[in-house]
């Protein structure tokens, strides 16, 4: 029976076209712009890697680029670590599981803007933690990372971990619940303590899931914009800048399309670098 799928094709055509043009076409366009001599306006004269050389000679970009790794590594480790820990603890059949899960997950429902502002206030030396501890009596207590150029980027980690650990917890918990219960019973018969069972048996079984989580967090780090804008505004100065903000600032405020495109292309490259091995593994695993 030949399936007449004309209607299906018709429905899909606009989607496919839009995807091609807007996602892939535009990405290629940006990549192309990054190798032209564009400045405030697009200039389609070929310029080789000139934009990239200029980009990496720019102090602000180097700060943003380094920040991405500093923030990224800590954010991944923190979010994954806390998320897995919370999932494991809740998997131990605690009471009030519903209440705990509700509390750990709610930050995901609010905007990164709200998260960023909230943590800006909490970490602010004038009204936040430093102020609080000083009022308690320790008048020399200092915790002003958020206004220090050398420490500001790390404050983003607090907000990032706070916002996203719940997601990792939910994903890992679902994975833990899918583990065959007889494996747990076997560990009880063999006198294997729970922590050892998680470390040596259960979490390794969830390796694909954990890799997925790492990829998710990493890509979120590359895309970060809202969080930086709200929390530190990229400051002080541009000390806590990130590539995601750099691109938007240079494209719109500074009106330098060439640099913005080059930066965006580097962002894309970063995403692909994280994604390519992951997708390759995922797809080959599914084929098997």
């Amino acid at each position, binding site marked *: 029976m030949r399936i007449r799928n004309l209607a299906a094709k018709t429905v899909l055509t606009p989607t496919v076209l839009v995807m091609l043009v807007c996602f892939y076409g535009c990405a290629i366009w940006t990549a192309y712009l990054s190798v032209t001599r564009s400045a405030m306006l697009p200039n389609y004269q070929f310029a080789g890697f000139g934009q990239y050389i200029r980009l990496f000679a720019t102090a602000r970009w180097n700060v943003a680029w380094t920040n991405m790794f500093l923030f990224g590594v800590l954010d991944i480790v923190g979010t994954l670590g806390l998320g897995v820990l919370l999932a494991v603890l809740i998997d131990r059949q605690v009471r009030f599981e519903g209440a705990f899960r509700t509390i750990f997950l709610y930050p*995901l429902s609010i905007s990164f803007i709200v998260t960023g502002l909230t943590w800006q206030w*909490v970490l602010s030396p004038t009204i936040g933690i430093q102020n609080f501890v000083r009022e308690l009596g320790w008048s020399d207590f200092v915790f002003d990372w958020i206004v220090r150029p050398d420490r500001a980027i790390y404050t983003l980690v607090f907000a990032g971990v*706070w916002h996203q650990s719940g997601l990792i917890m939910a994903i890992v918990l679902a994975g833990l619940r899918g583990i065959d219960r007889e494996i747990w019973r076997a560990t009880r018969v063999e006198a294997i303590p729970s922590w050892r069972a998680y470390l040596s048996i259960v979490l390794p079984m969830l390796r694909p899931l954990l890799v997925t989580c790492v990829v998710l967090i990493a890509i979120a780090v590359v895309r970060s914009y809202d969080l930086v804008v709200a929390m530190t505004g990229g400051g002080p100065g541009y000390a806590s800048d990130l590539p995601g903000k750099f691109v938007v600032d240079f494209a719109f405020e500074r009106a330098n399309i060439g640099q913005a495109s080059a930066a965006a292309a580097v962002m894309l490259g970063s995403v692909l670098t994280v994604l390519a091995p992951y997708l390759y593994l995922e797809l080959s695993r599914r084929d098997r």
Partner: protein
Amino acid sequence: MGPPVRIGRFGLYAFLVGMALFFAVPLLVVISTSLKSLDEIRHFSIFVPPSSRDFAAWWKAWYAACTGLNCGGVHVGFWNSVRILIPSVTLSVLAGALNGYALSHWRVPGADLILLALLLGAFIPYQVILYPLVKITSTIGIYSSLPGIIAVHILFGLPVMTLLFRNFYAGLPDELFKAARVDGAGFWRIFVSVMLPLSVNILIVATILQTTGIWNDYLLGLIFAGRENQPMTVQLNAIATTSTGEIEYNVNMAAALLTALPPLLVYFASGRFFVRGITAGAIKG
């Protein structure tokens, strides 16, 4: 079994409660500060509960907070966000459902390729295609307008929505589809009469996912919505970062709460649908 296990359990609960505090305290601080007077904020730490509950800051945030240009309060942004939200969510969910359905049972040539392309598209950062998109939308004439932002939201929602629905429909038994075809039903008939009635749960999940994502969006709204349609998040940030004179923390925090309230309410009301939504959105179906 006995003391060692009990200490272990106690430690477990202690840690979980500690973590719960870590997650809850920032929000509680924002709520409590929004209920204080500026005087109180100046003299006491934000971690101290308010002496009395004063909603003046909330009123001001809603009606009179200043974004530097005008002082209309966030209620302007609220209604803008609503006007952006409703069409965007409806259309992107619908588009995702239709596309997902078309890709699931109809054996379209190249379906796997399309799905892969969608998967990749879901990972592309906005910044990579931002400028070209601005160019395209202004050429079509919808840049900096309500239709513009709606179109952009639909665009960015396509990959995740399509993947979500596609995986759902692919999980339904093939026999349902075949039986309907044997009965003579065509593409649209099967969609409306067979698939949609079974999709209630996934529709709720998709709606929650899109509502949360679109309401909380900042960057796209900032660039594509136009000055008259700035969403609440954009207004909020503008209010909180204007530093003319003394910072009215209570007003800023009230504004933040008002912005966070709609998706928070959706979250508390929807429970496992929300969880399913974000996990499915993360793992792309």
